[in-house]
């Protein structure tokens, strides 16, 4: 049966969303990766990545977005982010402490590959925050209680 109902928003919103949602995702990744050089870090970048997926869901409706990033996939990515952060912390046992910055050669300042474990921790935090906030939003929007059936 063909779906004749229009889901999501109007045509103007959908066209603009197609153009900008990739740029928002790219900007979020940029803020995460440069977290140790310029302001930002894992938390702000993770929220921006979640906002790009929420933008997609608001403009195109929930079925089209859940095909791109299903709820199972987002919970797996969130758990992976938390486990990655914890394992980076536990690897400090190699040096005798917890959370030890075990890269002995810290690189030169202002370069992208510097500062030991800090970029890796930023990536782990951003995966966790982004996937977690998208899962919260998907659950709140998809909720249809008994009183809302009509």
């Amino acid at each position: 049966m063909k779906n004749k109902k229009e889901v999501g928003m109007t045509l103007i919103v959908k066209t603009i969303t197609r153009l900008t949602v990739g740029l928002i995702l790219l900007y979020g990744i940029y803020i995460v990766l440069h977290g140790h050089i310029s302001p930002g870090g894992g938390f702000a970048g993770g929220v921006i990545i979640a906002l790009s997926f929420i933008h997609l869901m608001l403009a195109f409706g929930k079925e089209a977005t859940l095909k791109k990033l299903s709820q199972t996939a987002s919970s797996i990515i969130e758990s992976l982010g938390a486990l990655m952060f914890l394992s980076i912390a536990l690897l400090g046992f190699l040096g005798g402490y917890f959370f030890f910055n075990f890269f002995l050669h810290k690189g030169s300042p202002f370069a992208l590959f510097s500062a030991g474990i800090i970029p890796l921790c930023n990536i782990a935090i951003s995966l966790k925050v982004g996937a977690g906030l998208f899962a919260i939003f998907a659950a709140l929007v998809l909720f249809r209680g008994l009183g809302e059936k009509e």
Partner: protein
Amino acid sequence: MELQLLLLFMIFAAIVAVQIEDLLSSVIAVGAVGLGLSLVFLILKAPDLAITQLVVEILCLIILIRATINKDLALVRDGRWFFNTASTLLFIALFLIFAYFALQELPHFGQPIMRVAQEYINTGLAKTGATNIVAAIILDFRGYDTLGEATILFTAVMGVLAVIRKVGRINEK
């Protein structure tokens, strides 16, 4: 000077958000308070916080608007309204008076005692190699707190999914 002006704007927007009866308008007024707070963070020389507060405020607005879709009728005042409001205002005035005396003990605004932070600033680049001192603090000097924060986020996501999941999931029509 602009700090006081922005704070007065935030107070005015907060009073509007609390007193107005339409739920959608009060949620938008809370959005104005949050965006004003982001500007204040920028004036106080905290760029990390300004970026984070801006995007978190937008997400908080979207979630709050989802909650106010189910509108409710206007509420009537019950019998003991005058006594309740007067006692609440009295308590708040008492709190502000005691807070004024307690605030005399703080250092002056603009001259912080940076005993621990001076160590972090002096040895931050040499020990961690990061040029963003705030990132070096939250991920290297005080990594435990970030681990606790990640746990809180995880628990909150689990809590939301557990509360929502009970009855009426995706209704496949």
